[in-house]
């Protein structure tokens, strides 16, 4: 069973979703919870069985699908993808568990289970076409979630979300096909396996074009400035569960793909584009923080702050050294936990008052103390308070980039601190002071459903903030081999100096084929 645990993890939710059509609608939620708990347990078992000393891929499975064209069902995970997969199954579980009374509950549960299949699939895929399949497929359930359960502008938001991402990924698809063609030129066979592509050394100009093609696909997904305009709409209109999954897991596909594709495949291009991307990242951090400050809708504040922190992840990724990339992967987890929790919290207040306007609230701390406490902790985590989860990731990301450029790091660090202002000010507006609005006087505090969702997230945020080692070690291990491969593969002098040479020879993977 261990040999096929990843396939189990990917297709179990899909199978369960199809069987879910038979389940009566009154029991749909219970069914969904049961399935997602099983899935979560399997993903935990994956962690248990995961060998933290191995830096390469584990649990690999390979079935050829189109051998003449080199397409294989190839899956496997390393330390980078392991925790994102666990997070995806965790969020699906608590997401379904915390669902309130929504219309068409059965459809929602089935859609979420399908979405889970695509999420796990993206992070486990090691074949570009399999990756692309899950990547595109993940749009469809999300389209439905936003479009069917969203706010008044839901159709516009969902279509915009779909088309924006779809367009970007089609450009990426052309890049993938070109990459496969180059591989075919170099070796004489077709292959879409990412691991095979790692072995290919490309001339710099090819690298630049291919990097750009992949970049468009990934940057729209992250979303990086200036491609971010779909996200506030999607968040603004999506139901709580949609926003949570979108922020916690779906956006991570973009940043994850940078580490999985762009860096090891095009190291010279990554060095070439390092500073432009770092500048975009800083613009993301500062600009979206300022936009967030101007928002009157709490959900938009959280949405823009979420984009802002994605900027730090990008910055860490493009530090191109072990500290930076490890930090950015860790921050992906942290960002997922924290922004997922924040969207849950906004959903809680929206359920009670059916408004998300900040001006409607004030003094909530005295009415809903438990809610205010958790909101406070999560907000602190979001701004990067030490001993909370995001601090570790942000610190490592910045530390990584410090090795590349002091000035950029300084700017980014300042931006993060400035960014804290808007969070604190919106927290102040909503929670402190007198209760000014009569409607807020008798709001009930968190109920058990919401506690089930929020308390585990809080515990994780604190636990990993204090003791990040169990997660950091496997990530670090796998990142090392990525960095090593990049150094080995790079061809320009600048790339050799920018990407550090690591001492640990045991992790070495030799690139073999070369495109002339």
């Amino acid at each position: 069973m261990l040999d096929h645990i990843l396939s189990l993890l990917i297709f179990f939710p899909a199978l369960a979703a199809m069987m879910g059509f038979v389940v009566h609608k009154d029991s749909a939620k219970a069914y969904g919870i049961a399935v997602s708990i099983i899935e979560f347990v399997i993903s935990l078992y994956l962690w248990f069985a995961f060998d933290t000393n191995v830096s390469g891929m584990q649990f690999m499975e390979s079935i050829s699908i189109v051998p003449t064209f080199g397409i294989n069902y190839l899956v496997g995970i390393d330390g980078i993808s392991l925790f994102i997969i666990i997070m995806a199954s965790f969020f699906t579980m608590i997401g379904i568990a915390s669902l309130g009374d929504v219309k068409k509950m059965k459809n929602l549960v089935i859609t979420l289970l399908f979405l889970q299949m695509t999420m796990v699939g993206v992070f486990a895929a090691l074949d570009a076409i399999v990756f692309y399949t899950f990547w595109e497929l993940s749009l469809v359930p999300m389209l439905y979630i936003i479009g069917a359960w969203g706010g008044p502008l839901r159709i516009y938001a969902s279509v915009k979300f779909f088309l924006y991402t779809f367009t970007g990924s089609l450009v990426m698809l052309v890049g993938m096909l070109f990459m496969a063609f180059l591989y075919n030129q170099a070796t004489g066979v077709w292959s879409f396996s990412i691991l095979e592509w790692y072995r290919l050394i490309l001339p710099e100009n090819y690298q630049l074009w291919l990097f750009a093609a992949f970049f468009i696909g990934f940057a729209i997904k992250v979303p990086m400035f200036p491609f971010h305009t779909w996200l506030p709409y999607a968040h603004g209109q999506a139901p709580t569960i949609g926003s949570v999954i979108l922020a916690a897991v779906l956006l991570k596909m973009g940043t994850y793909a940078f580490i999985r594709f762009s860096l090891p495949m095009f190291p010279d291009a990554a060095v070439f584009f390092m500073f432009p991307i770092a500048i975009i990242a800083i613009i993301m951090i500062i600009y979206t923080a300022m936009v967030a400050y101007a928002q009157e809708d709490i959900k938009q504040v959280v949405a823009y702050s979420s984009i802002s922190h994605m900027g730090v992840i990008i910055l860490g990724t493009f530090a191109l050294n072990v500290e930076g990339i490890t930090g950015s992967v860790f921050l992906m987890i942290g960002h997922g936990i924290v922004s997922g929790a924040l969207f849950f919290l906004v959903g809680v207040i929206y359920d009670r008052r059916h408004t998300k306007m900040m001006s409607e609230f004030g003094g909530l701390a005295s009415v809903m103390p438990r809610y205010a406490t958790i909101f406070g902790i999560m907000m602190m985590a979001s701004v990067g308070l030490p001993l909370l989860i995001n601090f570790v990731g942000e610190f490592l990301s910045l530390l990584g980039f410090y090795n590349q450029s002091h000035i950029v790091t300084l700017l980014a660090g300042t931006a993060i601190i400035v960014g804290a202002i808007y969070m604190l000010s919106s927290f102040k507006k909503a929670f402190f002071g007198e209760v000014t609005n009569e409607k807020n006087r008798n709001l009930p505090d968190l109920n058990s459903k919401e506690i089930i969702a929020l308390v585990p997230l809080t515990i994780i945020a604190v636990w990993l903030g204090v003791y990040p080692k169990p997660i950091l070690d496997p990530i670090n291990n796998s990142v090392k081999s990525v960095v090593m491969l990049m150094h080995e593969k790079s061809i320009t002098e600048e790339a050799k100096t920018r990407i550090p040479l690591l001492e640990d020879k045991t992790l070495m993977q030799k690139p073999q084929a070369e495109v002339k």
Partner: protein
Amino acid sequence: MLSHVNISLQSLNISTLVPMLIPIVGALFILVLDLFKKDQNKSMYVMLSLLFMMLDFGSLVDFSLNFNTNGTALGYFNMMLIDGLALLAQFVIVGASILFIPLALTSKRFHEFSYPEFFALFLFMIAGFQFMVATDNLILIFIGLETASLALYTLIALHNRSKSFEAAVKYFTMGALAAGFFAFGAMILYALSGSVEIHQIAAVFNADEFANLPFILVAVVFLLASLGFKVSLVPFHTWAPDVYEGASASMAGYMSIVPKIAGFVVVMRLFEFLIQSGVVWLNVVLYVIVVITMTAANIWALVQNDVKRMLAYSSISHAGFVMAAVLIGTTQANSALFLYWILFTFTNLGAFSMLWISRQKNLAPGQSSDHSYNKFAGLIKIAPLSATIMALFMLSLAGIPPFALFWGKIYMISAAVSAGYIVLALIMALNSAIAGYYYLKLIVYMFMKEPEIDIDSKVYTMNGSIALRTIIGFAAVGTVFAIIAVNPLIEFITAFVYNSGY
């Protein structure tokens, strides 16, 4: 005084005519049967046609086994050319017809299917298309084309609505013009080379190194215009949306597949040597036509209010996409054309069948046309299964993996990339994104809107009979599980295309 011509029956290789003769015999058989036993139920004619087409298919299988061992077969004064291209195209033609004809078995009565002539004409049409693809003789191509087209005009008109007559007349007029163009283009080629066989023409032109280039270009323009009408390339597409709208949905689906594959094969035979000749001008013209066909048709499709018209424009766009294969001209591209079209057959026939199954006799109040978008609003609440299946077909047409058309799409784009047409590949990819919008529009209507017009929920499966449901189920399974078939298909197609020298 004519001298005797001595030809041994052996050298005629009459057997190469068998695949075409089967539907012709079938059609005559149906007509004769009608003389003796009138007013039979349509189900008998459907099954008879189906039997003849299966026989036809069987003979093709036999020929393809023969092709694997002996290579290309010539016959009948070298007029018949049974190469891999001919066989593949005939497989698509006959296969799509087998999938199409059971759609006549609606539970509601429709005018056209009560005539046995419908089925006879249908079989004649198939024979015409088979002739068209199984030869490189321009005259025989012309005869095949006209036989098939004349039958098709009548089949459209038989639908017996005012719009169907309009469609048939429009198609007929345009088709007549195209036929004239074809004859004129072929005449110039004959005048220049003294031959009506494409490989002879190619040999002559290559020998004198395209000395009469201006005349050749005139001929090419006429032929391109004529074949452009048949495969509906922009700017020769104008008939298509109106004709699709006027024809019954099933017939429209059929028209979007079968006549076009026949056209593509002729285009491929005709333009292959011209493209390879290094005449830059032709490359540019084809490039422009391909890009405009894809893009313009997509943009027109965006603004349609009727699903059938949207699908009409979408199939024009798909034709442009596939036409790129002729421009690229590599073995991979030509194989991709067939792969794409086979996968497209399943998906598109499925989509049109979903329209066909919901065709009502009278429009509901507020409904502007037979298949207006608002008819499908909120379908997920009324008929969840129909909505889901329709959505599947739309996702496949949009090229979302892992559904059928995605595999055709990546193989085609990969062929473009491999041949160095990177910009073309990007245009093809971005066109899929534009197309995504209008396919999504139907999904949005079905899944995210509330029902808009007061319509009886039975309408959505109104014509549903076991036969229709079977075909739709077949198309849906083909669409979802296409991935299993992709590898054998690629191997099979590539071997055939490669061994025919394309």
